[in-house]
């Protein structure tokens, strides 16, 4: 039975592009909104996805901005045979400046990340305490295997020359990298990537980026990627950067201490 037969034919169907007349005869000021066609919806969706994809470009720009000073530092040391520690001083300074600039741009998103996780369960703090121990053991084990293979010198002992005070070394190698690198990788990149993929995938991608940027193939697999994965998990669980900063600081400080006392000769951080 059609609508006309059932008696509802008193309300004629509204034709598109005609003004709508109300029950008392007034004419609506705006025409009724038309439903988009299938093609229009498809185009709209495609345009939206293209706009979303621009976020990948922003991730790439940030990564390239961090990569630049590191590559310049490596190239300078390689071609001029300069003191690697001086290069690390300047390269690190430029890198932290770049990260600070991007962090300033993303300050609204980062503000909530610098809150101490008061409600974090004991399990989280146990992981924070245990992770640097495991990564340092991994680093020492890798160093031992590397030396026992007699492949070649990978020593970074020269980095920590006697001209620099140990406190300055701790500031430049343990405190600042922990703060700036965690802000960059877990604060900015991890958040940006979480808009594009799941948290687990974003954790893996930032962990590999973190490992690759250290240019230490051995360390990448042994302790850099595991450290970054745990840092990403802690940031995701606590919604705070402090646990990740803490494990990064403890790892770097332990590695630096071992280097200063001559404990082992391959390290990252």
């Amino acid at each position, binding site marked *: 039975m059609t609508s006309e037969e059932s008696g509802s034919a008193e309300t004629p169907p509204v034709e598109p592009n005609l003004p709508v007349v109300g029950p008392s005869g007034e004419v609506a000021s705006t025409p009724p909104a038309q439903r988009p066609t299938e093609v229009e919806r498809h185009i709209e969706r495609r345009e939206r*996805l293209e706009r979303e994809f621009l976020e*990948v470009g922003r991730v790439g720009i940030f990564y390239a901005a961090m990569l630049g000073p590191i590559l310049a530092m490596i190239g300078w040391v390689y071609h001029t045979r300069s003191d690697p520690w001086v290069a690390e001083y300047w390269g690190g300074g430029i890198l932290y400046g770049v990260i600070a600039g991007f962090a300033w741009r993303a300050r609204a998103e980062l503000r909530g990340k610098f809150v101490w996780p008061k409600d974090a369960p004991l399990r989280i703090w146990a992981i924070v305490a245990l992770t640097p121990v495991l990564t340092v053991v991994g680093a020492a084990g890798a160093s031992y295997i590397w030396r026992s293979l007699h*492949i*070649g010198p990978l020593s970074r002992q020269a980095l920590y020359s006697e001209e620099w005070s140990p406190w300055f070394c701790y500031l430049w190698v343990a405190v600042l990298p922990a703060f700036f690198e965690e802000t960059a990788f877990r604060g900015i990149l991890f958040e940006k990537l979480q808009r594009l*993929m799941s948290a687990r*995938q974003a954790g893996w991608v930032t962990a*590999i980026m973190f490992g690759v940027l250290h240019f230490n193939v051995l360390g990448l697999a042994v302790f850099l990627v595991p450290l970054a994965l745990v840092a990403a998990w802690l940031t995701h669980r606590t919604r705070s950067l402090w646990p990740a900063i803490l494990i990064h600081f403890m790892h770097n400080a332990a590695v630096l201490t071992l280097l200063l006392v001559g404990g082992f000769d391959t390290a990252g951080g």
Partner: protein
Amino acid sequence: MADDSAPVPSPSAPSAAQPYLTPDGPPRRRGDGRGYILALACLQAVGGIVYFAINSRRGSQVNAEVVLGVMLALSAIFFGLWIWAKKAPFAALLTTLIVFVTFHLLDAVIDPISLVQGIVVKIVILAGLVTALKKAYIAKRERELEAMESSPPTARS
């Protein structure tokens, strides 16, 4: 008037609306970029072995061993990413692109001539990875949006 002599397309012929169908039913995943990742893994492994074979005879074996180790490690990373790309193509392609560009730029910083060596292959792989990355992202998001639209409003909230 319809031309009777025109060949009638078979029901399994591909069209824009319906891609190639495999005998099992689901369409084949073409151009998903996994091939580029596998090619990179193979090229790194073969390149490392060839470099080692050439340079170990010249007496600089220590350096050749380090290069071989690094290239095999990179090959292993790309192989792992190739496996991961089956499950998460977008994330794996993004990681591959980052690792590929980073290590080639490092190579260029150490030895600027190396940037132009095999430039065609590098450009082909780079362009392929970028195209596949965009395709993977759009395919992933379209699947997500379709799933969201087809789910009942209560489930969405």
